[in-house]
Structure formats: C-alpha cells, structure tokens
C-alpha cells in the first residue's frame, strides 16, 4: 500500500479464525496446514517405526521367528515407503508451511486453497497404502524401489500401491508449486533473494527438484500399471521391454529425491548453528551456491545406484566421478558450519545438540557414500547392509535429526511456550547413542557380506544383528519422549518471548510467540528485514 494505515483497536477483535473441525478440514492458514503436515508426519513416523521394530525383532536372531519371508519383505517395503513419503517429506513440507511465509514476510502461502488440497490428499494416499496390508496377497513386498518384474507379482495391493504413489506425488507437486510461487512472488519489499534465510533458499531449490522429477516417478509407476493390467511391455523383457530401464528411470527420480529429503535439512542446520554459536553464518552465499550445485549434480549421478546391472566402462567412470564431485559442495557446507562455530559463544540446547549430531553423523553417511561411489568397491557393497547403514546415516541422523532439531528450535515460536530442556537433552542423548548402536554395526555386517531384505541370515552375523536390534528398540522407545515433550510444552510450558533464543535472527523472531493467525498482516520494514538477514 502506498500509505500505511493506523491500526486502532476498533473492529479488530474478530480475526475470522474458524473453530472446531472446520478449522482443520477447510484450513487455508499456513500454520494450521503446517501443523497438520507435522502431525501426519509424526503419526507416519511411528507407524513406519513399528514396521522397523518388527524387522529388527525378526532379525534379532538367525532363523525365522515371527514372520514369514513374504510378510517380512512387505514390512521392509512399507517401512521404506512410509518413512520416505509419509514421515520425512511431509515433515519438511510442514516446516515449509510454517516457516516460509514468516521468514519471507508474507501473510500466508500464495495459493492457500491449493495448500489445503495438497495436504488432504495425503491421508487418503496413506490409507490406501497401509490398507494394502489387508487385501489378498498382502502389502507390496518388492521393495520401495518397485523394481519390475518382482513388483508386478504383487497381488491385489498393486493398484493400491500405484495409486497411492500417484497421490503422494500429486501432493508433493502441489506443495512444491505453492512454495515456489510463495517465495518468488510473496516476499516482503526489501527481502531480496540473497537476503532470504538458508531454510527458504534450500526449500526453493528443493521445490525445483520436486517439480523436475515427480513426473518421472508418475510416468514410471503408470508404465508399471499398464504393464500389469493393459498388456504393455515397457519393462517386460518377454514383450521386448527393458526392466533395467525402469531402474534408470526410477533412479533419475530417486536420486534427486534423496536430495529432496536432505536439502531442507541443510537449510535447518544453517539456521540453528549460527543461533547457538551467536555468530552469523560463515559464507552465506557459498552455502546458497553449494545447495544449488548439489541440486544440479543430483540429476547426473543416478546410475551409481545400479553399477552392478552392467553398463559401459565410460558410464561407470562418469557416474563414479560425478558422484564424487558432490563431496565438494557438501564439504563446503560442512566446512562453513564448522567455521560458523569457530570461536563462537556456543551453547548446547536440544536444537544445537541435534544439529551437531547431524554434522558428525551425516558426515559419516557422506563418507560411506564416497566409498559406495567407487565402482569396484560398490560391486562388493551392492545390496548389503553397508548400503543400508549408509542411507540410514543420511536419512535418520541426517534428515530425521534435522527435523527434530527444527521442531525443538521453532517449537517455542509455534506454541508460545518453552519446553522441558532437560527432557529434550535426555531425548537427544538417548537418540544419539541408540542410533549409533542401531546403525553402526550394520557397516560391519555389510562389509562381511550380509545381504539386505532377507529375514534370515548366517549365524556368523548374529552378534552384530543382536546389537543392532537392541539399538533399534532403544531408539524406538526413546522417540516416545518426543511427542510427550511436545504435548507437555503445548499444555504447560513457561512463556517464551518473541525471540526465544538469544542468538536467533530472522523475521520469524520479530513476530509474537505464538504468531498471530495471519503472520505478516503488514509487510515488515526494511530495517526489520535487514536485522533478520544478518548473515
């Protein structure tokens, strides 16, 4: 507006905030939708977690104890699908919904009704997916990667799987479009691109990745569907199709998907470490370019997931070297986070603890990724527990820890209450110890040759499997502290100030805690933006 208006109290008492179930079903407010995404994500995390605990229970001892191999494979498949599409991705979308408008100085997302729609697709998608456990033939058991021809042998659950993947993809696309339009068109005056917080930057690039690769997934699963029901032979060798081509197409989606699950984590860590180091982020612009470089490289490394299918030497070399290139921008990020802490006035509240754990443990996942990038070594590691350990270090101690760190970081802002720091610290130490007990021995198992996705194993692997299962039980139980702590915080935490953390910068900390129903009803001033953008 050309001229600012006075905001007197008259007529201000009604904020048109809907109440009851209508508030949630018809929600167009970015915070309500963000909350729903986070609740859904938490629910799916525990459902996927139960599947994981069942897997580790079966693997506690050699031999078949509890489940038949088909059901075991259903558990691994559903665990993967639920955790990736149900827990990690919706959590990041929830965080984007909550934080992006507040951080760019916008009142809401650009397309609020689309935002509502993109959320409400998901409960239907997961009802379909989880419902597949109860149809003849059981849930899909061909792995989350859905490789044909194995996946084509799925029973009545097959169309449910395909349709649920389509719905999840549709939700992701709608969410990504909304994030892009919000960031590009709803930024407050003065919020230039290079003043945006790293979380916003990382989400902008993530949204770009999402819209780049989601049609590939949609097309791939549609071709599976037509191969199954309509007699096409895209991936059926008997009809002239090529099952290996599915792997190429899937991983052209799948590798950027890995970065879709980690780039927002980089953004979160880039918010938290400066706050608790009480220093500006070291090398802000380098961090932006590093995220963009990682995103670009993610398009040209897909075949490192499938070195063993057989490909020309030149292709193997290309994919090996391009994969190793990713270590450079990732190294820039790790170096800059470390440099941010250098000579900082560090304090170790739960968000910082989880961020530090991310830094150490994600790096372990990165290093094992470099080992896997080497073609000759990968021939040995392929489909062993080494791969399993690698991607769990990336996705659990990377993506999941960053989400927990983000919740601990912004929870005082969302609720207006501080949480129980002692309990949060306990949550951290239990998680950090048990996650390593859970996943680190799997490196040894993999190097010794234990294959993935097998419900039984040779007795020589027993000891480390027992250790790993104990870690899984401890890690699973310690996660129960998390929802308890959040509920306790909402109900009875002491009041949090607007700037809940002493070293916090960014526009969101200029708003009251909790923020009003509509975030920035008048755009923040340039001085406020400059204060927030003190990179």
């Amino acid at each position, binding site marked *: *507006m050309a001229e600012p*208006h006075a905001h007197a109290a008259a007529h201000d008492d009604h904020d*048109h905030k809907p109440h009851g179930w209508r508030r949630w079903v*018809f929600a167009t407010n970015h915070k309500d939708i963000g909350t729903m995404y986070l609740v859904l994500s938490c629910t799916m995390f525990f459902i996927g977690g139960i599947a994981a605990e069942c897997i580790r229970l079966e693997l506690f001892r050699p031999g078949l104890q509890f489940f038949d191999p088909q059901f075991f494979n259903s558990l691994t498949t559903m665990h993967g699908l639920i955790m990736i599409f149900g827990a990690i991705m919706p959590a990041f979308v929830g965080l984007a919904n909550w934080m992006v408008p507040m951080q760019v100085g916008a009142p809401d997302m650009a397309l609020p009704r689309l935002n509502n729609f993109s959320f409400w697709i998901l409960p239907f998608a997961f009802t379909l997916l989880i419902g597949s456990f109860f149809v003849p033939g059981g849930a899909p058991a061909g792995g989350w990667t859905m490789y044909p021809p194995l996946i084509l042998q799925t029973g009545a659950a097959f169309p449910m799987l395909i349709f649920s993947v389509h719905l999840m993809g549709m939700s992701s696309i709608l969410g990504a479009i909304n994030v892009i339009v919000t960031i590009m*068109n709803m*930024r407050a005056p003065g919020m230039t691109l290079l003043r945006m917080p790293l979380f916003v930057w990382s989400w902008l690039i993530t949204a770009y990745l999402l*819209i780049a690769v989601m049609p*590939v997934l949609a*097309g791939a699963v549609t071709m599976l569907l037509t191969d199954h029901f309509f007699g096409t032979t895209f991936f059926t060798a008997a009809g002239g199709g090529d099952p290996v081509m599915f792997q190429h197409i899937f991983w052209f989606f799948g590798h950027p998907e890995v970065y879709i699950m980690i780039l927002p984590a980089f953004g979160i860590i880039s918010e938290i470490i400066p706050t608790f180091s009480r220093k500006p982020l070291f090398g802000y612009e380098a961090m932006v370019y590093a995220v963009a470089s990682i995103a670009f490289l993610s398009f040209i490394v897909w075949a490192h997931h499938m070195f063993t299918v057989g490909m020309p030497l030149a292709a193997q070399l290309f994919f090996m070297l391009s994969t190793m290139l990713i270590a450079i921008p990732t190294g820039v990020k790790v170096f800059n986070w470390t440099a941010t802490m250098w000579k900082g006035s560090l304090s170790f509240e739960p968000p910082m603890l989880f961020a530090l754990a991310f830094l150490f443990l994600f790096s372990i996942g990165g290093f094992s990724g470099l080992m896997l990038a080497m073609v000759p070594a990968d021939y040995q590691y392929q489909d062993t527990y080494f791969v399993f350990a690698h991607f769990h270090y990336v996705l659990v101690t990377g993506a999941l820890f960053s989400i927990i760190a983000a919740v601990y970081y912004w929870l005082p802002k969302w609720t207006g209450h501080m949480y129980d720091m002692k309990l949060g610290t306990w949550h951290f130490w239990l998680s950090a110890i048990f996650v390593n007990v859970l996943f680190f021995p799997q490196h040894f198992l993999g190097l010794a040759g234990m294959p993935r996705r097998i419900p039984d194993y040779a007795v020589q692997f027993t000891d480390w499997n027992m250790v790993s299962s104990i870690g899984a039980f401890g890690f699973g139980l310690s996660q129960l502290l998390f929802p308890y702590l959040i509920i306790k915080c909402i109900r009875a935490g002491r009041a949090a100030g607007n700037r809940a953390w002493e070293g916090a910068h960014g526009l969101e900390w200029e708003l009251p805690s909790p923020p009003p129903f509509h975030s920035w009803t008048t755009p923040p001033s340039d001085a406020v933006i400059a204060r927030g953008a003190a990179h």
Partner: protein
Amino acid sequence: MDVAPLSIEIRPNCSLTVRGARLLFASACVMPFGMGGFLALKGFWPILPFAGLEMLLLAWALKVSLERRFHSQTITVTESNVSVESRQRLGTERVVFPRHWAQVKLRRPAASLHPSRLTIESHGRQCELGSFLTEEERRGLARRLARAIGRVNESPSWP
C-alpha cells in the same frame, strides 16, 4: 477553506516480475520436458503427459499469483466527491460517489473462512475496495476512509 484532496493508492505486494516469472517457468520446464522428451523418443512416452500437466499447473499458479501485480486502486477524496479508480490488466474503471452520501462499509464474511468485504456505497451503487489486501490492511483502510469521508448524517463542510 479549500482542503487538499486525499489520495490513497493501494496495490498488492508482488516480488516477482512478469519477466522473472517467464524465466522461472522456462527454467522449470527444462528438466521435465527434457527428460520426458528424451524418454518418449526411447519409447517411454507416459512421462511426457505428466510433465505437461505439471507445467500447466505451474503456469496456472504463476498466472493466478501474478494477476495481483496488475491490480491497483486509487481512492481520491475531495470536498465533494469520492472517486475510486480501479485498474486491472484489461482496463480501468472509475466510480464517483458524492462525498456526503458515501458510506464506508466493512462487512463480515458470511462464512468465517472467507475474507471481509470493504465497500463504498451510495444511491444503490457500490464499489469494492482492497479485495487483494490482507485482513488487517483492509480494516485499517476502512477506519481511515471512515474518518476521511465522514458519516452519512454529517453535513458537508461549509463552502
């Protein structure tokens, strides 16, 4: 005593230019259409229609959001008149109300999920103001206009 006319110009906040939107859209098209096209040539055509649908959706979203850029309203309050000039992409519309009959009304929405509506009304005619503003901004504008225009039962100032 002549009073200088009050002029208020309102427009939504848009950080994206049309050129920027075109560049963004073009860059977003590269990968889905590039990969979709390449795979279609190899016989795996079903990716391309999904890419097309997705890009249509992105184009629609950008268009809807960019429409805001072309909206603006200028409200001019003089001694005798209140005029509202509304500009959109396709043209400009000007409505003039006699000041001493004009009423500023801020209506609560019929459904709580909808935005309120701010209008200037007189003699059975009405003109909506600030539909693109946020709730808070609209209420602020309503208060300001109510003060500037006065009430229907107030006499116009002495000539």
